[in-house]
């Protein structure tokens, strides 16, 4: 029997992408097998994302515009929120739940025994493909609102949109990493994803509604501004490059912080006894 050899010798990037692709494949196969997920995950998720618009609607009934945002712009913002909710439910939360489950059962050890970055492996340990429905609907909403809103979006604006969209995605994953790092030490863990989800709800509101410390919180610490307000502003042609720069810095800082905490947590890992 051959031992100690037979490896393909790919670089780390190629290996991790391959690992994520394998996981996506498994998740898609599972999703196709349990087709009720279309309703319970896709449709329901979409309905509640849209249902949560009610407070916004209430506010709009009594004000012509909201903190400088017109109805069309708010429509784009809501579309971005629906996309965010879908990305979270489909590509962040399942991995978090699965990893927390593994920590509780003590089987995270096996993840740590594999020659992959455990953070990437944990975040990518499960996916819910049916949430794509929410994402597609969100994109539709954004496009529809953009058509209705006056103002041109040219290549510069789309470039800005691309940058902040990526920064927002990275920041969301970084928040997920933070949650994982914390969950190494705290053991009753459902609360943590619940916390993230309820905070996420504030991403519906334009960032200009918040003042002072809360505004700073939602722009730089739990940066919902980057995930919803900035993309909508980019499409409306109102995003400055300074803000884009700030978004990149924030996303990178969050990733750095998360990885730092994660490394610390690993070092003091006590590995639940068998």
């Amino acid at each position, binding site marked *: 029997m051959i031992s100690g050899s037979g490896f393909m010798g790919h670089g780390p990037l190629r290996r991790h992408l391959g690992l994520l692709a394998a996981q996506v494949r498994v998740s898609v196969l599972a999703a196709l097998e349990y087709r009720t997920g279309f309703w319970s995950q896709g449709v329901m998720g979409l309905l509640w994302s849209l249902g949560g618009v009610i407070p916004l609607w209430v506010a709009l009934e009594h004000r012509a515009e909201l903190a400088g945002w017109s109805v069309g712009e708010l429509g784009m913002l809501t579309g971005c929120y629906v996309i965010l909710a879908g990305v979270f439910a489909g590509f962040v939360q399942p991995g978090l739940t699965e990893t927390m489950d593994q920590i509780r059962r003590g089987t995270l050890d096996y993840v740590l025994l594999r020659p992959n970055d455990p953070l990437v492996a944990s975040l990518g340990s499960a996916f819910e493909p049916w949430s794509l429905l929410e994402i597609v609907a969100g994109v539709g909403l954004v496009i529809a609102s953009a058509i209705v809103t006056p103002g041109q979006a040219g290549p510069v604006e789309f470039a800005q949109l691309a940058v902040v969209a990526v920064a927002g995605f990275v920041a969301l994953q970084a928040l997920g990493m933070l949650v994982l790092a914390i969950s190494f030490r705290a053991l009753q863990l459902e*609360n943590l994803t619940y916390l993230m989800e309820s905070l996420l709800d504030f991403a519906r509101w334009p960032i200009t509604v918040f003042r002072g410390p809360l505004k700073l919180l939602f722009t730089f610490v739990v940066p919902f501004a980057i995930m919803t307000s900035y993309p909508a502003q980019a499409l409306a042609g109102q995003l400055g490059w300074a803000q884009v720069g700030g978004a990149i810095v924030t996303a990178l800082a969050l990733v750095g912080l998360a990885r730092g905490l994660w490394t610390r947590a690993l070092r003091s890992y006590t590995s639940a006894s068998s």
Partner: protein
Amino acid sequence: MSRWLAVVGALWKYGVAQALAYRVSLIIWIASTSFPLISLVLWRALAETGPIGGWQQADFDSYFVATFLVRQLTSVWVVWDLDRQIRSGELSVLLLRPVSPILHHAMANLATQPLRLLLAAPLGILVLVSVGQTMAVAEDPRVWPLVPVALALSWLLAFTVQLSVACLAFWLTKAATLYEIYLGAFIVLSGYAVPTSLFPPGLAEVARVLPFHAVLGFPVELVIGRLPLAEAVEGLGLQLAWLTGFGLLAAWLWRRGLRVYGAVGA
């Protein structure tokens, strides 16, 4: 009777010890229920230029601080614990004890209320002081004795709803996800995110008779004095009605579920 009290007392102490075992977890729980305080800031900003639908800034302040405190008192999480216990077979251990697992869970949830209130009340007071308001409370003294009743019914209703959903885990694998759907509806329709009386006309009436509102919106409005006595009593009646309905449902599901659980084996 005294033995039953002793058992309840012991379960209570056990519940408190469990809650205290994980400090970080407790903090996170408090943080995740501070949603109303952020809403407070939001709606203050919106109401800066004038009242919204008859609600002044001061009204929003009282409403959301009250929501925050009431939420601490009516939080239950039995759906996640019980769902996990049913699926993994841990329930068997609880079933072997001469105490009903339901009582066990009820005590575990209740045991944390005083602690959470103790930790949350200063936060609520701090927020009120920093916005320069005092808490509005019900003016009619006849309403005051109704408040503890409403809060108790509210907790019981929240518990029985979660219990019903958790019992579905005897048959379904993803019962907890069903609860997330309930939660999504709750956040909107209970008055957690915005007072139900501000809803568009058709929706407001519907929302105010649903169990979500009975758990949160009603007690909050009762506390801050926005309900005349007649409406308060009506609201209590509604709470009782929902509680009876869900109570019967939970009891039936529990009994049927135990039979299935026993047949399949953990």
